[in-house]
């Protein structure tokens, strides 16, 4: 068994035009910087990206957006991005917006083999248009379908050669579920250790969900809104 690759260049092999790719992260926190950067150097285009956000103009998925590599975004929040706005208004980009919790659960469902489930979020709003609804316990719910992807790209703090992952603080966010939902899951980690060095009781993402892993370099970890105590 060898899941370990040397770098993002090797890890993205097989990602092609028009594929669906999930990217972990919330805002710029916990995003797979190396892999995004590497994809931005390719000519791969027409991507359907599933990610809670779409980066900022000059960082994160903003790189792919700037290169017009993204055909469609499936997200819960896409603010703070002027290029995004421009492409959307010009009709160059499609967007599907989903409630954040429904998005998270749809991805988990994709990884867990649950094709569809009911949630109350969005009922009676435009999110519910075209979706089946049904009452449970006196309350209306929407039927939400699972999301999966050709590739899922996630970022972890520590990883081992079996693909086990540990996230740091709020950098977990969507990474854990997306790792479950990719047909092929690429994990980039800040520190890659031999199998057996991580505490087996403290693994966030078991290695079964990860097909490729590499130790990333030069993490910038840009802060979107630096806010300090007075």
């Amino acid at each position, binding site marked *: 068994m060898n899941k370990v690759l040397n770098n993002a260049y090797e890890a993205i092999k097989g990602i092609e035009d028009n594929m669906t790719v999930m990217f972990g992260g*919330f805002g710029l*926190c916990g995003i797979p910087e190396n892999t995004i950067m590497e994809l931005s150097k390719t000519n791969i285009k027409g991507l359907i990206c599933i990610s809670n956000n779409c980066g900022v103009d000059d960082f994160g998925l903003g790189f792919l957006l700037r290169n017009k590599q993204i055909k469609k975004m499936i997200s819960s929040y896409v603010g703070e991005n002027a290029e995004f706005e421009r492409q959307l208004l010009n009709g160059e980009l499609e967007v599907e917006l989903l409630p954040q*919790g*429904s998005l998270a659960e749809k991805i988990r469902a994709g990884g867990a083999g649950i094709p569809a489930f009911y949630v109350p*979020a969005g009922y009676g709003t435009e999110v519910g248009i075209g979706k089946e609804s049904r009452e449970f316990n006196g309350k209306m719910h929407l039927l939400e379908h699972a999301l999966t992807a050709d590739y899922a790209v996630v970022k972890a703090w520590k990883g081992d050669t079996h693909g086990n992952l540990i996230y740091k603080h709020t950098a*977990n*966010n*969507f990474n854990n579920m997306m790792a479950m939902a990719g047909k092929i899951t690429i994990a980039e980690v800040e520190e890659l250790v031999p199998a057996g060095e991580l505490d087996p009781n403290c693994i966030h993402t078991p290695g079964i969900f990860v097909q490729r892993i590499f130790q990333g370099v030069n993490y910038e970890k840009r*802060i979107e809104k630096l806010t300090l*105590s007075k």
Partner: protein
Amino acid sequence: MALDKNQIAQVIARELKDGYYVNLGIGIPTLVANYVPEGIHVILHSENGLLGMGQFPTEETVDADLINAGKQTVTYMPGASFFDSATSFAMIRGGHVDITVLGAFEVSEKGDIASWKVPGKLIKGMGGAMDLVASAKNIIVAMQHTNKEGQSKLLKECTLPLTGVNCVKKIVSDLAVMEVTDKGFKLLERAPGVSIEDIKAATEGTLIIEGDIPEIIL
């Protein structure tokens, strides 16, 4: 005299009880954390995966891997825990968060809320707001009673795209504290020096006035 933002937050903070798990939205709701009554310990939930959110960090303690749902850098308190977004929304959807405070563009007398989208302006997305309003056991809205043109934001029917239906339980505006009932907005308290007539004039939706309406004591 209408309440300022901090006073609205202060009034909402009276709803907090010891041991409450609390989700505070962006804007005025965030200020509620500054007015937690003495002797009461609440735990702040941030939907990006943190229970036990603390203050903003110092330059020494700032950490790019530790942010809140508004993407601001934060810290965590003793007893905190981190988890993925699916688990975080399991807490919300499963009714484990005791109180949710959020802002609104409009609220209807049926408890519908519009807070995420203004047609003609860029759609930024609903983030976690739809999940929160659809599932929270106790939703309090912090808002201005009227918009800049003086038009009521407490309506018979919302005019903007909805975030959720039939979900708001209580509203604290700059003018009044109201409960959302089957029959409309029930006036509970009024801001110091604000008359019932002032509130009536500022409320398009049905306003229910029963008995004496005391002034808010700050």
